[in-house]
């Protein structure tokens, strides 16, 4: 075992937790969308990128700060999501699942190319707000405040979403419509509208993750596409049948990734895929998933 000190370990665990925060929010959004729409939203990574870029544009073109962007950017990207659902996705619900996959892949290509044509692939810096800058000195290590904030927000958002779905009336509509949308309509509930709003909500989660990521990573047109493949692996591992499954797997795999960076750095970028293979070998339906 290579030598390491506790600081490196804690530092990497924190980094893992940060990555896990993004995995959790993104796979949660995918799971929410998949539940009702039965579509794997391939545009998710592009929408995450749009969230980050919208925050950056709000700041650089309109002088709107981070705090407002935290709400505005997801809302703006969600409106884009509403348009996608209304004009494109709605037309293919009757078809085989793979068309949803292909359609949202096509949308992702268009969106990412448009941003790439406008802003290139190089990253744009976005500074964290003053209140979240700096670090807490714990003697043995420095704890950047912004990173703590990201983990905190992610936890709150995930738990709130879970409560919304499991414990509220609206959540009961959602769970019921996931099982049998036609019957829910016969109770007088506007399911098509609910589908639109659910997609918008999932998209807003992706965009929120993007805003959170903006000060951590550089804002760039390609920030979403690579992340997307990893999030898909996370989703395969956790299974999309359960919301807590998506959240726990997201954080868990972030930590696994962080630990791998400490003990065997070359494997850090692939450890999640290896984990996926192991899980598929020994538990084909995923850690928490119902069989697909």
């Amino acid at each position, binding site marked *: 075992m290579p030598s390491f000190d506790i600081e490196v370990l804690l530092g990497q665990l924190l980094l893992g937790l940060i990555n896990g925060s993004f995995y959790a929010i993104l796979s949660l959004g995918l799971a929410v969308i998949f539940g009702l729409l039965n579509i794997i939203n391939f545009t998710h990574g592009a929408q995450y990128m749009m969230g980050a870029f919208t925050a950056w544009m709000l700041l650089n073109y309109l002088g709107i700060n981070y705090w407002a962007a935290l709400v505005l950017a997801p809302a703006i990207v969600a409106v884009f999501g509403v348009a996608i659902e209304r004009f494109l996705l709605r037309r293919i619900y009757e078809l085989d699942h793979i068309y949803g996959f292909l359609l949202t892949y096509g949308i992702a290509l268009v969106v990412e190319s448009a941003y790439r044509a406008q802003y290139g692939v190089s990253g744009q810096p976005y500074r964290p707000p003053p209140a979240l800058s700096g670090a807490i000195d714990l003697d043995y290590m420095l704890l950047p405040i912004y990173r703590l904030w990201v983990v905190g927000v992610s936890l709150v958002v995930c738990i709130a979403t879970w409560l919304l779905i499991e414990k509220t009336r609206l959540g009961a509509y959602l769970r019921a419509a996931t099982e049998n949308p036609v019957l829910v*309509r016969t109770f007088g509930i506007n399911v098509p509208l609910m589908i639109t709003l659910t997609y918008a909500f999932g998209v807003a989660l992706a965009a929120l993750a993007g805003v959170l990521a903006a000060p951590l990573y550089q804002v760039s047109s390609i920030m979403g596409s690579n992340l997307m493949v990893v999030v898909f692996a996370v989703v395969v591992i956790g299974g999309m049948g359960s919301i807590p499954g998506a959240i726990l797997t997201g954080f868990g795999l972030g930590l696994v990734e962080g630990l791998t960076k400490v003990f065997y750095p070359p494997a850090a970028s692939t450890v999640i895929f290896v984990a996926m293979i192991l899980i598929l070998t020994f538990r084909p339906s995923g850690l928490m998933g119902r069989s697909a």
Partner: protein
Amino acid sequence: MPDRTGTAFLTVEGLHAWYGESHVLHGIDIDIREGEVVTLLGRNGAGKTTTLRSIMGVVSRRTGSVRFAGRELIALPPERIARLGIGYCPEERGIFASLTVDENLMLPPVIKPGGLSVGEIHALFPNLAERRRSYGKKLSGGEQQMLAIGRILRTGAKLLLLDEPTEGLAPVIVQQIGTVIRLLKQRGFTILLVEQNFHFASTVADRHFVVEEGRTVDVFSNADLTRNTQKLEAYLGV
């Protein structure tokens, strides 16, 4: 159809319906007055279930006319139809496995005043009170049926469409459901009931429509049923 006095609550005229490409209903005509209990009788595959689904608007396509309390429904989506005051209990019961009994019961929103209270529903179906926290997937067939009926009584819907509520249930539960239907009639509910079992139907209904190959072909009042037993048996192929 014989012309009836009294205002029709639900009038179905020349109803055609399709699932995808296949044309299933070829002219259904039904009229129900307020407070009546009416059954649709017919063989398997005659189009009884599709008739209820077409009234609710959950088929691929439908033409003709469905008027309810003076409103034409043929162009409305199912959620609008439900909001006018129609409750639908499907043949497969449609209990949501991932929801508890209480969540299932509270799921349909109240659309009009005058529905039963949860207490009254529990009084009708004591099992539902006992199993409030159980998940839908844990219920027996009888309990599922009670829940499926119970949850549309809360909403204030005045017309109930019940699709084979007695199918596959033990005689004692069939009796219980019969009692409930008669009670609901007393409370002023109007009920359109699909039944295979015409002995059961004769204990609850005022009139019976016979459906054959997607058409309504005959109608009897309950009083005439005994006189027409042979004819009916021919229709039902029993």
